[in-house]
């Protein structure tokens, strides 16, 4: 039996874009246990509801994450709209759906680049991020921002997209498919890449369910779970089926995200065809009371938004509580499980394949 050693992994590590710390208990080159700890970038954003009115708070919530900021803004607005019984115009819901799927493409391409960087394929990393720039250009053209968009507000959206711009967006995305296909074929078919992903970090369907995994981590293990099936947005109308892979390994998680990139392009195309004319927002006035809990399918998985106003005489323009539970929170237990028994050299790959977003997790 080898000697047991504890290796600190992170919070600063070349493979980690954000700080998370793992104590890896190893014996020889095998990881026996991984103990996570967080809190290095806790910003207390939820507590800011005490200082910001519910109409201003959307700007704070968007800043939870620089990758899925649109989805966070939408989730917050949906929770507020639910608490206040506000019906959002159809056109606004379609545009929210389009921007949300654009965010998914951008997030998955960013992750694919980080994965390539993680296994040392630098040119592949650069190409992924080159293609991603086109998505950011589309965001900039339609919202004015590349990272923080500020187009969602309680009651609808702030900016419309005209028909010409929408059709140009769809054409750009269709043209981009060829580039993305070339890139993703490398992830799916290259022997050296497959050697790093296939059979590594297997999470069985039973374990994924027991550990309450979400998003591509759960779907890569065969769990049919996607909040777009029953959540906000126009997914019912445009037609949506979740992407499921059954391998449960790092390759399956990668494949789910790759297939979702193409699916998101198709969803945007259908939404652009079906979008109705009309208003993009309704006025929202007065104090906020009541409570509402809702969920969004962010690129990394299910995110929960809970808005609660003060009751009775205490009702004001401030929320009593705003809670955001992000997907990485839910995938840390699954990550800890897949790390048990893996080779030390595979730890960076495994940590990456849950697509951890620590800014989201800590808020």
């Amino acid at each position, binding site marked *: 039996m080898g000697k047991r050693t504890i290796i600190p992994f992170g919070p600063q590590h070349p493979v980690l874009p954000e700080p998370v710390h793992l104590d890896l208990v190893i014996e020889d080159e095998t990881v026996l246990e991984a103990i996570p700890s967080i809190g290095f970038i*806790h910003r207390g954003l939820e507590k800011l509801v005490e200082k910001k009115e519910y109409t201003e708070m959307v700007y704070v919530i968007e800043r939870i994450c620089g990758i899925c900021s649109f989805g966070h803004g939408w989730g917050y607005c949906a929770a507020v709209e639910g608490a206040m019984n506000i019906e959002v115009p159809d056109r606004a819901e379609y545009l929210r759906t389009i921007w949300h799927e654009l965010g998914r493409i951008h997030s998955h391409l960013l992750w694919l680049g980080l994965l390539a960087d993680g296994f040392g394929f630098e040119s592949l990393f650069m190409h992924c991020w080159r293609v991603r720039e086109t998505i950011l250009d589309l965001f900039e053209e339609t919202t004015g921002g590349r990272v923080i968009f500020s187009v969602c507000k309680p009651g609808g959206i702030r900016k419309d997209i005209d028909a010409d711009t929408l059709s140009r967006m769809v054409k750009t995305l269709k043209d981009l498919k060829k580039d993305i296909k070339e890139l993703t074929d490398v992830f799916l078919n290259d022997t050296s890449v497959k050697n790093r992903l296939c059979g590594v970090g297997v999470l069985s369907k039973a374990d994924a369910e027991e550990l309450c995994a979400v998003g591509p981590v759960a779907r890569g293990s065969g769990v049919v779970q996607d*909040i777009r*099936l029953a959540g906000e947005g126009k997914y019912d109308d445009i037609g949506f089926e979740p992407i499921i892979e059954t391998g449960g390994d790092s390759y399956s998680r990668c494949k789910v995200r790759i297939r979702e990139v193409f699916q998101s392009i198709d969803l945007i195309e259908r939404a652009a065809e079906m979008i109705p004319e009309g208003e993009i927002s309704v006025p929202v006035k007065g104090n906020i009371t009541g409570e509402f809990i809702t969920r969004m399918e962010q690129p990394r998985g299910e995110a*929960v938004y*809970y808005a609660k106003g003060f009751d009775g005489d205490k009702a004001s323009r401030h929320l009593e509580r705003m*809670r955001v539970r992000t997907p990485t929170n*839910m995938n840390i237990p699954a990550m800890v499980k897949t790390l048990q028994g893996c080779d030390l050299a595979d730890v960076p790959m495994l940590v990456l394949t849950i697509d951890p977003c620590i800014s989201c997790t800590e808020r």
Partner: protein
Amino acid sequence: MSEKKYKIQDIRNIAPVDLLSQVRDIKDDGYRFVQLCGTKKEEGYEILYSFDKEHVLLNLRLIISDEDEVESITKEYWPAFIYENEVHDLFDITFKHNALDYGGNFFKTAEPYPWK
């Protein structure tokens, strides 16, 4: 047209003493644990537990005093350790029998906590 699933708001108030038995029943019914969150009230705290089955949420709400300790649900749902440690560190609520208790060291912040 039937109501969309996400609009169903099933929030049940329960007594702290009933928490474990309720959670056990929920687990037996095949629910997935989604989240728990704490809210500071004028007197004590409110804790909201959420569970999912077929994309519909079931929520349990507990009201506790400042001194109360809460039974951990990690025996039924191990991933809840993340939330119980988070709520302990940020709100100073103690969870008894937590399967993975960080002893107040889960969050590492520059400012002292908990914030009340």
